[in-house]
């Protein structure tokens, strides 16, 4: 029988306590807590649609156990932007038509945020490296790249190192 234990997560800027079993994934915990923006795609750590940021790094919530988030900072898509104040990437995604079915987009937004928070003006190689775990089956990634390129220019205030 699985033991339930209390853990504490700094979730979207708020300290919250949860009772979890050892086997519960961070994804399951988030979704049962009403944070459904983090998507369930493969539960295998392959597709990236469940990407959240934990202690500054993009992680797959589906293969992260909830207990791993104990006393860590976790940020989900719900903390990024609102209708009246979308993040630059969200705005660019909309305007560059980077969103088709949209199922993968929250994960991509989180991966890009983690990257640009650490490396505001990445090289092309760094972009490829840091988005290699987010599958999109709709767009062919071109419009997502358009949105990303525009976001780098806007948020870094520099000419992107990566030329499209």
């Amino acid at each position, binding site marked *: 029988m699985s033991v339930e234990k209390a853990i504490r997560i700094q979730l979207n800027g708020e300290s919250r306590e949860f009772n979890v079993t050892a086997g519960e994934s961070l994804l399951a915990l988030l979704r049962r807590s009403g944070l459904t923006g983090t998507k369930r795609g493969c539960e*295998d750590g392959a597709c990236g649609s469940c990407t959240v940021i934990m202690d500054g790094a993009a992680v797959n919530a589906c293969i992260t156990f909830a207990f791993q988030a104990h006393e860590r900072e976790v940020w989900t898509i719900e903390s990024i932007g609102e209708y009246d104040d979308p993040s630059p990437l*969200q705005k660019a*995604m909309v305007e560059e038509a980077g969103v088709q079915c*949209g*199922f993968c987009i929250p994960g991509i937004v989180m991966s890009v945020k983690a990257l640009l928070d650490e490396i505001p003006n990445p090289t092309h190689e760094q972009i490829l490296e840091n988005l290699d775990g987010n599958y999109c089956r709709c*767009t062919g990634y071109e419009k997502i790249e358009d949105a990303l390129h525009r976001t780098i220019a806007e948020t870094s205030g520099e000419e992107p190192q990566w030329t499209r």
Partner: protein
Amino acid sequence: MDKVKEFKVVNKSVDKIDSMQLALGKPSFVADLVPEDALIIKMLGSPHSHARITSIDTSAAEAMPGVHCVLCHENSPRHLHLTAGQGYPEPSPYDTAVFDYKVRHVGDRVAAVAAETAEIAEAALEKIEVEYEVLEPVLSIEEALRDGSPVIHDEPDVSHPLPVPFQPEKNIVSEVGMKEGDLDHEMETADYTFDHFYETPYAQHVPIETHVSFAYLDAADRVVIVTSTQVPFHCRRIVAQALGMDVKKFRVIKPRIGGGFGSKQEMLLEDVCALMALRTRRCCFWQLTREENFRYGRTRHPINFRLRTAMTAEGVLTGIGMEAVCNTGAYGGHGLPVVGCCGSKVLPLYRWKHIDFDAKVVYTNLPVGGAYRGFGATQAYFALESQLDEMGHAIGMDPVEMRLKNHIQEGEGSPVFAALGEGKAGVEMTIGSCGLSECIKLGAEEIGWGRRTLPEEKTGRYRRGLGLATLMQGSSIPEIDMGAASIKMNEDGSFNLLFGATDLGTGADTVLAQIAAEELGTTVDMMLVYACDTDLTPFDVGAYASSTTYLSGEAVRKAAAKVKAQILGVAAEMMNKPIDELTVRDANVVAADGSEVTFSAVAVYSLYERNQFQIMDVASHITHKSPPPFSAHYVDVVVDTFTGKVKVEKYVAAIDCGTAINPKLAEGQTEGAVMNGVSYAICEEYLFDSKGRMTNANMQDYHIHSLRDKPKIKTILVPSYEDTGPFGAKSVSEISINGAAPAIGNAIFNATGARLRRFPFTPERVWRAIREQSTVPSPSPEAVLSI
């Protein structure tokens, strides 16, 4: 309709209307909307490819605390039906039960449990005791057609709703064909003839959202099904049929769909959710795991081709014989329409005088084929465009010139259009718009075709190759598909636009809103789109056959025109002017003298002031043509001749989709289809063990391309104007998945001189082809000079 080419809303890249909602991660998809107290459904899938269930004992599972319902063939209704969502009556067999006493592929339904939690449901599945009589499986097309082969559908109640040659006792789902001219004679007398076999693999759509549905009983005791489906109305009809109940009992709601590509043109979970809800009176939720999605979800039909062609010494194409045998897996699904499209969407591209088309669909004990973007054309274009490349090479003709010389043009028809329909004859058609020559020329320029050299001129380990494929598809199924829309005006001048068409991420809701706004003289932000809900929205066949823009779009335009007439009528009364002096512009009604009233004023007048009525109308549309979009695809690859690894560096897709209602979304459709096609051509395939069990049923081992794998994709929209489409539009969504396999195969040939007639082009296949080719003189020996 006038050829209006100056648009205010149409042909503009307005923002996709649901994209901010999705980018913010708002609850939008089925799994985001499930009530907290829903029961969780889990399915017991068959471990065997082919077996009879001799006994099943669910009592231990039923006795578990937290288990509310266990379904299997012994306690579920048996009304054989078809899970594929198609027009009714369907061109496909009724060969599926909700639960059957026989299983026909690994992962096939055996039983299902609804329980308080997923863990309890999974534990209950393990308590179900099933005894199987394992039968010999049929694991290939050849085995299916062999005399004395095991019969997969031996159930006495299997039937077919249409008079087609359905022979389940021979594992044959259907056959279709046509003849024009005298191909046999042409093959004997033509200057050059070619005859090759081609194979295409099992592959899957892999939408990032797996199949997902929930169902509950509303306060009026009706079953509400919320589901990720491309075909809400077909789903309602099929669920009613499968459960032996009335259509009126069911309401199907489609929220946002997390990708479909054809996979969700299928009733796959909804009958079980509905039956569980009826039995438990609880909301019942079912989402497939990724593994189940591979095993139990639908696939692209593998098809084997024999392609015979003939041409003159000058490169004029004269004769084609296509034999296609399509493996539909364990259930008939979309087999016949898919293999029909191998002919109808492919053969008319060139002006053949002599045509033989002969296609067959067979059952096997392998995963079930479904609708998949491209729908048969994808498979057949691999055969045709590969062979065309060989034909050009045989006479030293540039592939560009070969295609420019032979492709169908505006004003021309093809006997194929009238001969091949869906389970019946097709509809005669002449081409109303064709920008293919321009696509070919612009694409050649963009890829740098001028630097192309012949394979024998290349040296070194890494060799670059350029390849080309040209394509067409269709737009809707003529005289079968129907779409409808209603528009209702509100007092602020906004409109509720309701239709049955289903946006599966393509941007259809936005495109249809643009069409309505253009016709009404307003803006997209004034269109409140709602789709789809079978209780509230008008009928539509759903998202398939490249129909939504062309077919549903015209229904929307017609509804908007009728509402516009009502608006003008009210304004005429308000302004005391003759109606024919009035027009709409920028959400105003404007008179010839410049006076105007706002839409809002018109609506307020109509609702509150005089002769009140609701400004509202509905329109339906069917088509009498399926105008093809055309496209030329170019690819630039580098082959590592030591390892066989193929790197696609650049891909150019030049496409004529008529008027692009929303250019950025049209580019997005093209790029997404191209990327899916490249991934399919390079690395996607189901691998099976000797008993027919898929061995790579997860996303670690079934590969799709990531951003890190992608080539640079360049889309070129080549405008044309299709008179029969809304504001000149044709379809755009499917065609561009068809090009990658042949274009890359042709580029590999151009790089190495090795011809692959089977893909995906994995390192081993390419390496072997290069190794075999190096012992064979060029040009290919199969190109026989017959005079």
